């Protein structure tokens, strides 16, 4: 179907076939040209996302997960942003697309929910107007009708007393309410793809559960695809079809959610899972540690980017970058020479432990002194004992 935008421009809304991916990203790169050098924030990411499915993108600070989402959506417009590779939405190439072309997609085709609801809402505009703005601009709906729709949207995202809320300013709402409003704004024009960038990180845990359930319900009702960006493996575990784990600008492991948790291959994913305190573990359970810190993205390590911190790393890992290879389970890809759960991986870890490699000791014993010795790359205090 087509809708007519305000300027008489035809706004394309999903004519394409139902089969095939909604979003196909291939060898996608986003670099920032800075005085210090080229920061390779996203460096060769490939994935596809089907209609109505959810992809969880997991990683720590600086892994490139947020840049990936914003760059695909065309929100990084600085002169120093260098994008390459390909990202096609419904067959339309997004890399190199003009702002005008993107504007036709924003709101009606793709939308984003940001982390901090206070800064993503306009503090001096009433909530109602912020919701109707998109409806009136993109869909050219008359004011009364837009107000009516805004009311329905607020009701559907679970805001009590929505009529009164429409006339309020963001500061009059709680954090959870504000995030519900940003979700209502994102959903207003019926996007087919929703980017949710850490949508619950700024919220308390009880509110987080409400918001995640709301996103899931809305997604199911609208048959909308979602990319859920988060640092919390717990958030993605029960709510995604596929997970991509990012490290230093690359996807290091991706698999259907259940497969990933059941058959971890990439040492980084394993390390992330084991360093989280778990509710079911008894008090004072010793946590495993990933020593060191993520690499400098201007000069990433020559081999595997995780190698300097990896408990399994061998000489090969430091010199040769592992490609994304397929595991035996379908749809499961990982980037490792000595994968977890294989004989090669087990042997590598044992060899490292025998040689007292700090990263391996930190991971197995949780020893903080060993972890401190792993500090690598970047700026400071590396190589206390000179083991590296």
């Amino acid at each position, binding site marked *: 179907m087509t809708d007519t935008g305000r300027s008489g421009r035809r706004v394309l809304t999903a004519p394409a076939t139902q089969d095939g991916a909604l979003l196909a990203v291939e060898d996608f790169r986003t670099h920032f040209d800075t005085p210090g050098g080229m920061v390779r924030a996203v460096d060769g990411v490939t994935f596809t996302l089907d209609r109505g499915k959810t992809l969880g993108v997991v990683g720590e600070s600086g892994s490139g997960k947020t840049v990936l989402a914003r760059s695909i959506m065309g929100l990084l417009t600085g002169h120093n942003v260098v994008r390459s590779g390909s990202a096609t939405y419904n067959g339309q190439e997004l890399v190199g697309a003009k702002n005008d072309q993107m504007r036709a997609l924003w709101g009606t085709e793709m939308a984003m929910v940001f982390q901090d609801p206070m800064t993503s809402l306009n503090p001096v505009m009433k909530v109602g107007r912020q919701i109707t703005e998109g409806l009136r601009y993109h869909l050219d709906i008359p004011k009364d009708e837009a107000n009516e729709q805004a009311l329905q949207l607020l009701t559907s995202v679970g805001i009590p007393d929505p009529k009164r809320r429409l006339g309020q300013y963001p500061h009059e709402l*709680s954090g959870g309410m504000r995030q519900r409003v940003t979700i209502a704004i994102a959903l207003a024009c019926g996007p087919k793809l929703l980017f949710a960038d850490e949508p619950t990180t700024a919220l308390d845990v*009880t509110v987080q559960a409400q918001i995640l359930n709301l996103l899931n319900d809305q997604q199911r009702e609208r048959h909308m695809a979602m990319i859920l960006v988060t640092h919390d493996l717990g958030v993605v*575990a029960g709510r995604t079809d596929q997970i991509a784990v990012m490290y230093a600008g690359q996807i290091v492991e991706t698999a259907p959610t259940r497969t990933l948790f059941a058959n971890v291959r990439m040492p980084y994913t394993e390390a992330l899972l084991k360093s989280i*305190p778990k509710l079911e573990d008894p008090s004072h359970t010793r*946590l495993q540690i990933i020593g060191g810190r993520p690499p400098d993205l201007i000069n990433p390590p020559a081999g595997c980017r995780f190698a300097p911190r990896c408990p399994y790393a061998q000489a090969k890992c430091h010199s040769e970058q592992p490609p994304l290879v397929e595991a035996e389970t379908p749809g499961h890809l990982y980037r490792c020479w000595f994968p977890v759960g294989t004989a090669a991986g087990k042997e590598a870890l044992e060899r490292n432990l025998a040689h007292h490699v700090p990263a391996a000791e930190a991971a197995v014993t949780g020893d903080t002194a060993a*972890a401190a010795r792993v500090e690598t790359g970047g700026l400071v205090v590396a190589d206390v004992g000179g083991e590296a």
Partner: protein
Amino acid sequence: MAGTGTAHLRDTDDVLLRIEDLVVEFKTSAGTVHAVSGISLDVREGETLGLVGESGCGKSTTGRAIMQLPPPTAGRVLFEGSDLAALNGQQLREVRTRLQFIFQDPISSLNPRRKLKDIVAEPLRIWKRGTDAEQSARVAEVLEAVGLDPEVAADKRPHQFSGGQCQRISIARSLVLEPKVIICDEPVSALDVSVQAQILNLLEEMKARYQLTLIFIAHDLAVVKNISDRVAVMYLGKICEVGSPDDLYATPAHPYTAALLRSIPVPDPTIPPVQSGLLIGDLPSPIDPPAGCRFRTRCPLAQERCALEEPEIRQVSADHFVACHFPLLGAETPEATPVEVGTAAP
């Protein structure tokens, strides 16, 4: 939530710090904010007390009130036999050498213009502990203890360190005067999970090495369980439940604790996310908190009695105390029937 009462306080000789009926209120133009309303807690020597709750529950305010930053509106903070609220400035400064604080944001809690060795040595200089050489030796010792090489690190400034390293520096600074108690206010919330594990393990190591007593304030229940010997759950300025972590997490007796635990997303895709039994609505205003039990406006088990009468903390098992009229004991509570939530006026 309630929570007046002192049933959970212990009478043993090794209680190092004890707060009684602590009240902290802030006067604002909109009215008085009841941040902490009459809570009592104690910490034994060598114990880690975890204070957990959502934003606005008063956990950080409690930690700061112990340090008299600012002094509480009412109540007593007993440390080494004296009431800190009654001390004058000079006496208080002296006590604070044995009562240290670690803040949430490791980078903003370090002076960016000073070198690491000066940051860590400052407490020693202020208190004129030892000669210059002795001070340097002590600084080197604590830096090494937290896993930083003093040779390399001493002359650097905070911006040259990562967030995790800055938190190590904060820990080193808090250790340098050989304190007895360290209050850690969300020390890992600003850190990535891999770094969080390092800091949690480090705190455990430091606690053993220097015989520390810790008060660990955090919103993350799993983190608090991992590090604590005793956990107190707070809601809207009150304590709702106190107990040993394994017991409290396995069989939460307070409906709020139970709801909190249910809300946590589990990193296991075979367990479907919880859809029911979640809290709805928002935290009531601390300016006009609900009468009776403060949790009743969101509690699925609330009855008329909860609005009329504030529940007192009482014992439910060996080291497990709860402030609730209808605690969850083992299975579901028998007599309490859920009422329409949100109808009860504050």
